[in-house]
C-alpha cells in the first residue's frame, strides 16, 4: 500500500497519503471514543496531513456499514444508523430522562451558553434539583464561561459527548436550529418595559453568543 510517487522515502518525510489514511483508519477503529485531530497528529509520524487523510477516509466509507464521522473537533467511526436493528445485543438501555431534563437539555443546546435564569425564564418554572445534576452526570452539559452581566452567573453549554450521543458534527447541526433562529425564537427578548425578571438583566445586550466556544 505504498503510493507510487513516494520512491524517495526518507526518515524525515511524511508517509504517502494512502499510508496516512491507513494510519488514521487504524487509530479510529481502535478507539471507542472520538479522537481529536491533535491527538492523531501527535501519534502519527511528523509531517502528516491528518485533516486531508481524514477527508479521504470519510469518503471511502460512504455508504458502508460503518461511517467516519466528525464529532466537534474529533473523529470517530460509528455504525451506519440504518443498521441499528442488528445490534440488539449492543444496545444500551439509557435511563429515561424526565420531561424537565429533556427540555432543560434542549434549552441549553439551542441557547448556549445558557444561565439558569434563562432556562427558568423559558420554561416558566425553577430548575429542579437533580435535573442539572443528571445532565452533568451524563456528561452532556458542562459549565461554560460566566456571563458578563450583573452577578456574573455561571452558564451551561453542551459537551462533545452530547454531540457524539446525538450524532451531531457540531451544535450548529441541531435539528431545527435555523428555523428557530429565523423565527426569532432564540433571541433573548426581555419583557416589555420591565427590567425583566430578576437576574436576566442581561437583556438585550447579551445576544446569546451561540457556539462561541
Amino acid at each position: 500500500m505504498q503510493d507510487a510517487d513516494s520512491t524517495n522515502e526518507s526518515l524525515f518525510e511524511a508517509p504517502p497519503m494512502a499510508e496516512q489514511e491507513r494510519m488514521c483508519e487504524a487509530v479510529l477503529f481502535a478507539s471507542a471514543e472520538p479522537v481529536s485531530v491533535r491527538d492523531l497528529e501527535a501519534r502519527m509520524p511528523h509531517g502528516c496531513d491528518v485533516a486531508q487523510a481524514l477527508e479521504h477516509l470519510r469518503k471511502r466509507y460512504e455508504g458502508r456499514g460503518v461511517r467516519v464521522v466528525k464529532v466537534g473537533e474529533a473523529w470517530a467511526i460509528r455504525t451506519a444508523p440504518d443498521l441499528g436493528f442488528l445490534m440488539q445485543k449492543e444496545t444500551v438501555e439509557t435511563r429515561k430522562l424526565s420531561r424537565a431534563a429533556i427540555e432543560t437539555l434542549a434549552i441549553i443546546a439551542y441557547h448556549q451558553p445558557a444561565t439558569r435564569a434563562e432556562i427558568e425564564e423559558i420554561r416558566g418554572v425553577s430548575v429542579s434539583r437533580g435535573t442539572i445534576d443528571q445532565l452533568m452526570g451524563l456528561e452532556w452539559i458542562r459549565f461554560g464561561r460566566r456571563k458578563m452581566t450583573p452577578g456574573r452567573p455561571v452558564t451551561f453549554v453542551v459537551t462533545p459527548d452530547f454531540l457524539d450521543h446525538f450524532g451531531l458534527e457540531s451544535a450548529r447541526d441541531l435539528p431545527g436550529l435555523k428555523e428557530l433562529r429565523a423565527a426569532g425564537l432564540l433571541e433573548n427578548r426581555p419583557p416589555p418595559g420591565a427590567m425583566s425578571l430578576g437576574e436576566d438583566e442581561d437583556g438585550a445586550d447579551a445576544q446569546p453568543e451561540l457556539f462561541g466556544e
Partner: protein
Amino acid sequence: MNDNLFQEDATSVSERLAAEALIVDVDGYEGPLDVLLTLSRTQKVDLRKISVLELARQYLGFVERAKELRLELAADYLVMAAWLAFLKSRLLLPPDPTEEGPSGEELAAHLAFQLERLQAMRDVAARLMACDRLGRDFFRRGQGEDVTRIRTVQYNATLLDLMQGYARIRTRDDFRPFVMDRDSVFTMEQALERMRGLIGFTGDWTDMASYLPQGWDGDPVRRRSATAATFAASLELVKEGHLEIRQSDLYAPIQLRKVDGRT
C-alpha cells in the same frame, strides 16, 4: 390573597369544563406557563394568532375552579393569575394616556412570544430525542484493541466529584450543634431570590402579603419571619430601583408595584 382579583365574570360552560379537565392533573403541570400553553391549544389557532384576552379568561377560570375545589395552587400560579387579571383590564379598558409602562398589547405580545418559544423548545426537544442516538441507532467500537504493551494508569475524577468534595468541606462547619432550629426562619436572601422571580409579573399595586411563599402563611412564627423577610427584600428591591412600595394608612396592607424600566 387578594380575593377581588379572582372575581371573574361568569365563564362559559366550555371554559369551565376545560378548566376542570386541567384541574384533575394540576400536579402534572410544570408551572403556569405550561398551563397557559395547554389552554392555548383549545383555541386551535397558530400561537402567533392567539387571543391573549381569551387565554387570560381561561386561566382565571382555571384558578377560580381550583379555588372552588379548595385545591392548593402554588403561589406562582396565583401570581400569574393576578398578572393576567391586570393584563386583561389593560386590554379591555381604553388606554389611559397618563398611565406609564408598556401597553396591554405589548404585554400580551410578550406573553404570546413566551408561549411560542416554550412550544418551539418542546418541539425541538422532541426532534432532538428522535435523532439517531449512540447506543440505540448507531454504535461505537465494541472491542478496544488488545495490543497491551504499555499500561498507563490514569487517575480520573469528574467535575462533580470536585465540586461535591469542595462543598463537603465547606459545609461541614454548618452542622455544628449550636445551630438553632431554623425551620421557621425565612431569610431575606430567600425572599429576595423569590421576589426577583415574581416582580416581573406585578403590573399594578399588589398586596405584599400575596408574595409570601406557600406554607408560610399559617403558623404565626413562620408568617412573621416570612413577612419580615419579604418586607426587607422589597425594600432592597426599592433601593435597587425595581419596585415601588406604598402603604395608604397605619396597618393598611403594604402594596408593591414594579418600576417601569423606562423611567
